[in-house]
Structure formats: structure tokens, C-alpha cells
């Protein structure tokens, strides 16, 4: 029997062993200067003169020690374990599928450090999907799930592939045929309802496509997770995603009005699209955050908003992180948070400087120098203490300006100085390119990862300090030879707390098993987060990476509730990715 081979464009333009587009990456050129290749981003094609120094000084790394990754070795892939009967029935439906090696490997992983590291080292994975199928619409998914139940094959839904929790990894103990259900062809906006400001959207659509298509009609969702270039609507629902501008638009659970999901028990959806219901526990919440363990989200009705008339960036410099956090807390208290407000610690501020592109105009650098003089000498800010908040305001012009003033007035009470629009905008531009930096690090023996949590306001500072210290301590105890980089930022504010994002990287030369060391340190850091009142995850989810803490996090009974739902909805564990529970 011959498989129908389909090539879909996404895979062609994206890296198979790193983040993002194949044409975009950081590298140190022959002169040792850093540059960012390609044409897709504002930073593309630019030289970053300070990055080398920062990189070498921070990590004790050398740009001379380059490590080139091997190419994909299809031979090393475990042979596809196909279920012939399923294949026969699937072929009859006409839904495209493939069991080509590169299709399978591409969908065998997300972007955890251990996954990317394994790919780069040419080690591959113990278990990968045996085949990939591309349903085109809801009904295709219904057919596939029915066949999967009939023939007892395992289905793992695949959206944008940006998971950082090991959620896409195939359980090595899974003996059945594993089918990766790629939703990328279900990428249409089915209708837009301007009276109610909602849109019906197929769940496979990728964030940037959704935004672009809606923009054409003058609308947006306002949901902008950092991964929005590659992540899908279905993935957002399945992980309880959070967007940068949630202060205006809400997180995914606030944006979703209706969900259609195909489960082994059948299709679940609500009978109306009322804005709120009191009909027992909200069944949507079984699906939001279910991480592909219950079924496939096929269609979603989502709120949309007219594109804001005016958008303005901003930034504030604080003498230290404590002052910055106090200011964010006050902003949250007065419920006047801009669309986005993020506070970077000093390490990230330094790092941001290292990513400054070469300036051609002498005048610009003169102004920069003057600013630095003003802040450090005149205002007495210690360059090794100060930190920066970046702001994004949206709305009609007058309100934005009013809002801006309110926020800057609060900042001033905490010793914050307005530091201009450019600094703010740069911060947000960097959001999308930062993910590319890990690959650069890996080229030079540096491993890096980020993780997040949410925590009540009064514990933010203690948590940040303790987690950073724990990381440094654990690295030392586990034989990491170089001082690790630990950095954090407060990325979201809520009434009762904040979301904190940590970055953590170290030079792994001298370590026998850097990934294992890295995982031990991250594990300890998570223990520390929990001990300091932080949550297991704010928006990344649990996947397989954080399963072991679930019981502690939601109690035995809580876990039992989730288990019983899984048992009812999917008794044969067709959706067998083994996430979460």
C-alpha cells in the first residue's frame, strides 16, 4: 500500500532542529561580530556589535569554539509501526497522510531544551509518531478519531509545535501506532459576526495568520502570546495560553465564547453562544488546559475587537527591581495597566543593551550617551541595579495619552523615569527574536531555557531572589564550571499577583551530560518556586515536564476529578500523549 505523500509549506521554511524560520538566525560572522540573518524581522540583516562581548563575558564562552550541528539522519529513526487496518480505512476517507521520516520527526517534539539538544546532537528520540495525517476540517477529524477508536491507535494532536513542556513527545512505552494529527490545514476563518464581535475560526490557524486575516477586515483578537508567529489557536485552548496584551483583551479563557471538540465519546459543544452561563461547572474548562488528552479542538468562536486607533510604546527606568515591582503593583491596584507592561531585571536590561544594533549616526549615540549620563550620574542610578519597564498603550488617541500620563505619574512615585518610546518598542521587537538566541548559545556550548510562574504580589520579590539564588547554588553543586546567567521579568500583572518569567543559561563545557544537569537545576528551581508560593505554571502548561507536581498542586481529590473526566471521555486512552495526569 502506498501512502499519499503531501508536502506542506510550513515545514519547508522552518528549522527542523531549532527555533523559527530557516533563514533567520543569529551567528558570529568571520569578524567575530554578531548578526541576525534573513529579512523577516526588524533586526534582520543587522550587526550587533556588543553581543560578542556580552556573550563571552556573561558565559565565559568563546566565539571561537563553534559547534556545528549534524544533519538529520533518517536512518536512525525507529521504523514506523503502522496499523494496516487503520491505514486502509484512512486511505478510503481520502484524508492525506504520510509516514516519511522528516514529517514524523518534525512532529515528534516541541521546543524544550532536551528535545532541541537531542536533535542537534543527532541523537533523535526513542519514540516518534508512526504517521502524520492532515485533516482539512472538523468532519475529517471526526472520521480520524472514529477510525482511531475502531482500530485502537494512539492520536496526538499537533498544532504549531511550540510546546515547551514535553507535551508533544511520544510516550516511549506506547506500543500502538501513533498518529500525529496535524491541524495546520484547518486554518480558515469560517465567519465573522460583527454584531456580536465574534468570529468562528478553525483551530489549526496560526496566530500571525489569524491576526493578519482579521486585520484585513479591521479587526483583531488582541491575543498575542510570544509564540504567536508559530502557535495555533487549538494549542492556545489546549494549554490555557496567555497573550501579551491580556490586560485589554484577556487571556484565552476570556476570549473564547464557544469550543467544538472531537473526543472518543463524540463531539462536545455548547448549544448556544451566550456570553456567560450558569449551567454547572463550565465544560469549556475541561478542554482549556487539557493538553491534548481528551480530544481535538476543531473550531472556536472567539471575541474580536476593532483594531485600535492608536498605539504607543513607552518605557520607564527604575533605580532597582524592588522599586519597579512596587510600581507594577500600584498600577495593578489602580487597575490602570496598559495593554502590556513588563518589568525586566538588571540582567535583562544589560542583555537588551548587548542586542543594540550598530548605529550609523553619531548623533544618536551622543544622545544615548547623554541619557546614560543623566540617569547614572545626575539621578544616581547604579547601572548594575537599575531596571526597565516596557509599556504598550492601545486605544483611541486621547485616552492613550491620558492613560500614559497616569502610568508615568505612578512610576514617578516609585522613582521611575520615563525613558522614551524607542526603548519600549525595542523591548517588544526583541520578544520575537529572543527565542532564536538559544540556538546561537547551543552553537557555543551554552544551554538556555525559560520558565514561568504566577505568584501573589507580596511574594514576587522573595520568589525572584530565592529562585535565582537556588539556580546559582544548584549549578555550583552540580559541577557547572561557569557562573550561570539568571534573569527574570514580571510580564503580566493581575489584581492579586503577577506572572514572572525566568531565563536561565550556562556554559556547559566540562559537563558530561549538560541536559541532565540542566534538568536537575530546573527541577530544583521549580521546587523553589512552589515553596515560595508560586504556581506550577502560568501559561506554559504541565505536559510531561511538570506532571510530578500535579498532585501537590491540585490535591488528590482535584487530580481524581481530572482523572475521572479522562476515564469517561477517553476510556481507551486514544489521546495517549500522557500529558498532565
Amino acid at each position, binding site marked *: 500500500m502506498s501512502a499519499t505523500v503531501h508536502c506542506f509549506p510550513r515545514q519547508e521554511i522552518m528549522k527542523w532542529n531549532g527555533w523559527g524560520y530557516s533563514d533567520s538566525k543569529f551567528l558570529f560572522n568571520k569578524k567575530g561580530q554578531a548578526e541576525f540573518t534573513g529579512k523577516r524581522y526588524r533586526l534582520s540583516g543587522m550587526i550587533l556589535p556588543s553581543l560578542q562581548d556580552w556573550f563571552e563575558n556573561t558565559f565565559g564562552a568563546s566565539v571561537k569554539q563553534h559547534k556545528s550541528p549534524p544533519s538529520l539522519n533518517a536512518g536512525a529513526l525507529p521504523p514506523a509501526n503502522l496499523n494496516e487496518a487503520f491505514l486502509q480505512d484512512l486511505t478510503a476517507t481520502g484524508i492525506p497522510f504520510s509516514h516519511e521520516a522528516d514529517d514524523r520527526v518534525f512532529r515528534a517534539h516541541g521546543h524544550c531544551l532536551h528535545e532541541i539538544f537531542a536533535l542537534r546532537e543527532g541523537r533523535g528520540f526513542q519514540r516518534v509518531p508512526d504517521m502524520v495525517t492532515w485533516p482539512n476540517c472538523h468532519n475529517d477529524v471526526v472520521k480520524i478519531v472514529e477510525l482511531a477508536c475502531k482500530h485502537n491507535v494512539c492520536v496526538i494532536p499537533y498544532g504549531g509545535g511550540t510546546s515547551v513542556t514535553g507535551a508533544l513527545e511520544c510516550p516511549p512505552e506506547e506500543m500502538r501506532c501513533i498518529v500525529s494529527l496535524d491541524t495546520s490545514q484547518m486554518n480558515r476563518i469560517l465567519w465573522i459576526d460583527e454584531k456580536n464581535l465574534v468570529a468562528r475560526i478553525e483551530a489549526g490557524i496560526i496566530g500571525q495568520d489569524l491576526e493578519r486575516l482579521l486585520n484585513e477586515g479591521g479587526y483583531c483578537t488582541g491575543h498575542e502570546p510570544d509564540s504567536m508567529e508559530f502557535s495555533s489557536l487549538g494549542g492556545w485552548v489546549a494549554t490555557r495560553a496567555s497573550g501579551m496584551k491580556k490586560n485589554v483583551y484577556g487571556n484565552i479563557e476570556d476570549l473564547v465564547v464557544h469550543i467544538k471538540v472531537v473526543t472518543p465519546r463524540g463531539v462536545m459543544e455548547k448549544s448556544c453562544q451566550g456570553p456567560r452561563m450558569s449551567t454547572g461547572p463550565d465544560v469549556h474548562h475541561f478542554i482549556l488546559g487539557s493538553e491534548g488528552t481528551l480530544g481535538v479542538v476543531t473550531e472556536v468562536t472567539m471575541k474580536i475587537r476593532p483594531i485600535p486607533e492608536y498605539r504607543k510604546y513607552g518605557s520607564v527606568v527604575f533605580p532597582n527591581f524592588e522599586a519597579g515591582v512596587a510600581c507594577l503593583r500600584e498600577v495593578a491596584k489602580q487597575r490602570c495597566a496598559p495593554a502590556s507592561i513588563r518589568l525586566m531585571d538588571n540582567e535583562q536590561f544589560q542583555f537588551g543593551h548587548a542586542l543594540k544594533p550598530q548605529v550609523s549616526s553619531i548623533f544618536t549615540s551622543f544622545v544615548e550617551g547623554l541619557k546614560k549620563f543623566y540617569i547614572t550620574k545626575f539621578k544616581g542610578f547604579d547601572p548594575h541595579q537599575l531596571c526597565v519597564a516596557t509599556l504598550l498603550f492601545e486605544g483611541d488617541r486621547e485616552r492613550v495619552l491620558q492613560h500614559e500620563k497616569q502610568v508615568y505619574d505612578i512610576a514617578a512615585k516609585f522613582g521611575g523615569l520615563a525613558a522614551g518610546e524607542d526603548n519600549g518598542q525595542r523591548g517588544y521587537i526583541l520578544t520575537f527574536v529572543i527565542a532564536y538566541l538559544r540556538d546561537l548559545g547551543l552553537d557555543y556550548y551554552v544551554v538556555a531555557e525559560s520558565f514561568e510562574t504566577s505568584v501573589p504580589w*507580596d511574594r514576587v520579590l522573595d520568589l525572584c531572589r530565592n529562585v535565582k*539564588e537556588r539556580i546559582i547554588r544548584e549549578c555550583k553543586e552540580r559541577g557547572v564550571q561557569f557562573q550561570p546567567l539568571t534573569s527574570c521579568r514580571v510580564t503580566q500583572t493581575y489584581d492579586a499577583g503577577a506572572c514572572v518569567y525566568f531565563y536561565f543559561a550556562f556554559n556547559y563545557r566540562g559537563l558530561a551530560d549538560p541536559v541532565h544537569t540542566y534538568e536537575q537545576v530546573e527541577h530544583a528551581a521549580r521546587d523553589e518556586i512552589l*515553596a515560595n*508560593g508560586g504556581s506550577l505554571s502560568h501559561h506554559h502548561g504541565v505536559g510531561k515536564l511538570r506532571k510530578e507536581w500535579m498532585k501537590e498542586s491540585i490535591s488528590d481529590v482535584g487530580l481524581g476529578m481530572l482523572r475521572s473526566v479522562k476515564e469517561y471521555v477517553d476510556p481507551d486512552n486514544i489521546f495517549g500523549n500522557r500529558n498532565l495526569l
Partner: protein
Amino acid sequence: MASTTLYSQRDPMLKKRDDFEDILEERRNSSDLKYAVRCYAPVLYKGLTPCKANMLKSMVLQSDHLRYVINQVSQESGEAPDIIHEEASVILEEMAHRLKISTVRFFAFTLTKAFKTLFQHICVNEEEYGSWYINLQQAIQEHPVVLLPSHRSYMDFLLMSYILYTYDLALPVIAAGMDFMGMKFIGEMLRMSGAFFIRRSFGGDKLYWAVFSEYVKTMLRNGFAPIEFFLEGTRSRTCKSLTPKIGLLNIVMEPFFKGEVFDVHLVPISISYERILEESLYARELLGVPKPKESTSGLLKARRILSENYGSIHVYFGQPVSIRSLAQDKVNRCKYNLVPRHIPRKPTKETQSFVTDTAYRIVRLQEDSMVLKPWVLMASILLQNLEGLELSLLTEQTLWLRGLAQSCGAFLDWPDHTPSAKVVSSSLALHRGLVCVSGGRVSLVLGEPQGLVTPEEALFNRAVSVLSCASYRNQILHVFIRPAILAVAIHNAASSKKDEVFNCFSFLCKMFSDEFILCPGDTVQDFEEACYLLVKSGSVQTLQQNIVVTDRGQSTLSFLNGLLESFLQGYQVVCQYFCEEACDSLTEKQYIPAVRSFAVKLILAGNLRCYEVLSSDMQKNALAALLRLGAVSKVKVADQVTLKVNKLAVNSLEDTLGGRLPTQKAVLARL
């Protein structure tokens, strides 16, 4: 277990720890004034929030914790919050220190003078794992540090600050008992050298507790200074370590449990005196002569003591112990996530037992590094020979005991290259107030027999000598306590079967857990340690689940039995008192004098030869044991607390202690 981290450093015979540096030596050869005004620039905590002692006060008064408690108290009492706030401010004013470097310099000058006359040497441990002060300096820089010295004398905390000043280390703030404050001028001086004062008892006073705990925690969180306090709560009048009080330890651990600091380091410190300044004062106090109220003039009168020789002091700084590593897998810090951190809460059972456990470990670390002088061995022997013994026999037995003590891990300071006769005679000379040699016989001094003394007075004088002498023997108890309890258990048990001996051992541990440092829950471990030590010294053999005393072990076991004899007898006398004499309306207050006069009667009638039962310390401990075991209970009648006796239970405990009743039955009788 926490014990693994702590015990791993234990076997003292294995490590070289007898290098000490005499810090008085340099003082004797250079200017005291120069020393007092020299540059003092200690390393401080890296997370230090710089603030003055006065700012501390307002931080405390404005803390969420205190505001919460003030409101609570105000609601309960109906007083306006402002008034309660004022009360809090008064409490804080009375409590707070006013650490000033000039006062410290003043003390550096005057104490040097005093120390040089009083003591021959003040020795501080030199090397172990690198130098202790480098370790301590690092700890102070990295984390909030809590200094936990043993407490035997008023000197302790002045001495501690003096040493830290000498080594250019950060000066601590010290939790001191309120009784010092009575001494007007000195009290203020101490305050300015870093002491803060706490009332002895404030059981139910919520506001006081809140001010006090917030004050300590604020200093700890800000890294204001190392915090010093005495785990034993008060000076041990008996030179035996007191069972630790965990209140303050709880307070200093809380910022770690709540994530307010990354870690807190505890530093056990052992201060051993060859002769304690308060020696005879303590004995009198224990016998019920009220201690003189601390007053400046009293202290000046005490100048008399300046003319005496108090030998040397050894101070041993232990390795800083990280609470974070001790608490790993023992305390689930997530428990603190669900209530705002400023709301005071009783510690959970888990936390409570962790803190207790840690307190005991620290006291044991203190004990292990107590430096013991030859005299301690001699006192132990003399107390078992109250009628006196030949000097040559004393020397011989002292040498024998030295071997036994060393095999049990005692930290002995026995002079090198000195004939043993000389060691013995110079010890006798230093303690000539307690012991006399006549006609080649050594015996305890029995007070001045001149003039007409009543039999009670004679008995009292004799008791002073015995208790003073006992305070030296007590210094070595921690070395022998486990083998000694085992020895008694072997003696009392109905057979040599290991489990029967263990039952007996475990009964004794329960009985004596207020008397000796026996960590609750460690009985099995203690039993194994005792067996190991006695087997190692060749005193017992374990044969097929039997514990058998060897021939050469007889003398060891009889010595060990003798060591506990007075405690066994003392507790039995207390039991006897409760069975025979105590009336129904006996109040807690009446108990001590009543049991004392009961014992006096017994001694005068020639029915009892144990003087140590006259010690109020032993009487209190025995009562605590009886209360704990349920043989006596407290009943509150009107304002008075009376003691209700279960005679049957007391009687069976008495018989079990005396070995007249097998252990099992005693337990049954209680039920």
C-alpha cells in the same frame, strides 16, 4: 535525617580539633587602648538594608504583622488601636538595643583588663575545616546568621562580643533576660553593646510576643547583625546542658520557611569554663537561697572575685549549619502559601518537631565541643567517694576514667608532657575551695565547722560542696549519658535479653528527658550508640540478642551506674514524697520547699545519703517528668494551680526506677 549531616562530624577522636589560640596572649603583650580604638571594619551581610537602630523600631511598629496584632488585640480588649500601638511602642522601647561601637570599644578596653586578671587563657579554636572565622565571615556575608552559644555564666555574651570584635567579625545583637535591666548603668551599657531585653515570661501576652518576634525577624531579614541567643533559655546553674527552648529558634527559622530569606545559618558555640565565676552562687541558688537581685553595686562587690584565679576559658565555634539543608524533605514550605505571611500562626506539627529536633541537635553539637578539664574527671570520682579517698587512688582512677572518657569521644584538655601526679595536684590547687588534701586523703570541703552549727546548717554546708562538685561532674555527663543509662538498664532489667534491656533503657530515657539532652524520638539511635560505645570499650558483649557484661566491664558499669545513682535516688525521693507526704491541696509553689524539707528530714534521719536531691533543678525536672508521664497532673483551683497525684502511678514509677519492678508493669500500671 538531619542527624546525618550533623552526626557525620561527630566522632571527635577522628578529627584534629585541639588547636586553640589564646587571644589573651596578644593582649598581654600590647596596648589595651590601641586594641580598643583599632580599626574595626567587619564584613557585613550582602543583602543588608542599611539602617540605624532607631529606624529598626519604626520598621517594626509599622510592620503588617504588628499592625494586624494591634488590631486584633484592640478588638479583643475594646481599647483603641492607638493605645495598643502606644503600648507596643513602650514594649519596643524597653526591649530594643542601641548598639554603639563606642560602647563596644569601652568594653574591649575594660574587659581586657578584667579578663587578664581573672583568667589564665581565653582559647578560641583555630583550625578545623579551614579557619572558623573565615567560615563564619562567609556565612555572615551570605546569609543571616544566628549565633547559639552555650550558657553557663553572665560572662557568656560579653565574651562572645569580645571575641567577635577581636576577630573583626560583625557584632551580634543579643537576646538577654530582663533581669539585667535592673542594673541601671550596666543595663544601659549592655544595651549599647547590642543586648536587647526580653521578659522572662510573657506566655499569653500576644502583643508582647508580636513586638518581640517582629523585632527579631526584622533584624534577621534586613541582615542588621548576627542574632545571638541562648537555646538553653537561661544560664545552666548545674553546668549540665538544659533542654532547649524552641520559641526563639522558631522565630529565626520562620523567615526561611516563609521564603523571606534564602537561608539562615546557625552557629553552635561551646563556651567551657575551667572555673565558673558564679560557682558557689549557683549551688546556693539551687538550695533555695534566693539569688541576689542583679544590681550594679552587687556587681561591684563581686570585685572580690577579681582576686581569684578562674583558670582558662575555651570557646569553640562550630561549623555554620544551614537551615535550608536541614529542613530539606522535612518541612514543606508550601504550607505557608495559603495564609498571608504577616498573620501569626502556630507552627504545624511537622514544623514544631523539626524545630525541636534541630534545637536538640544544636545543643548536642555544643556539648560535643565542650572542652573538659582533668578536674571534671576527678569530681566525678570524688562524688562517688564522698567519704574521701587516697590521693594515689584518685590519680589512678582519674587516669582510668580518662581512657574511658576518650573512648566515648570526650573532648579532653589534658596537658601534654606533664606527669599525671602534677596534673592532679594542680587541679586540686585550682579548686581548693571545694576540695582538701590532708594526710594523703582527698575529700570534699565540708564548710567551716567552727562554732556551733545546727545539724541543718551542717547539712546545708555539705550540700553546697556536693552541688558545686556535681556541677563539674555534670560537664562530662553528655559523654557518658547513653552508656550510663544502658548500664542502669542492664542492672535493672529482669534478664539480659536485648529487648528487655531496651524497654528499660527507653523507660529511663523517658523519665530523664528533662534532665539530660535526649532528643525525643531518638531512643533507638541512642540505644545503639550506647551499645556501640560499651562494646567498643570491651565492657559488654552482645551474644544472640543478649547483652552480657564482661569481666573487665564490671568496673566501667559500676562507675556508670554510680554516675546516675544520685539522679535515680533523687527521682525516687520525689516519688516517695508524693506518695507519703503530699497533701491534696499542694500548690505548684509549695512543691519545691516541701520536697526539700522532706529530703532534709530523710537525710537527718540517716535514711538518705543523696544530697543532690536538695537541688531545686532536680526537683523541677522530676516534677516535669511526673507531669509528662501523667503520674501527677495540674489542676487549676481558683487562681492557684495545685498538683493532683496518682499515687498508684507514682509508686510504680518509683519502683521501676529502683529496679524493683520490671519496666513493662510500670507502663501498665499507668494505664
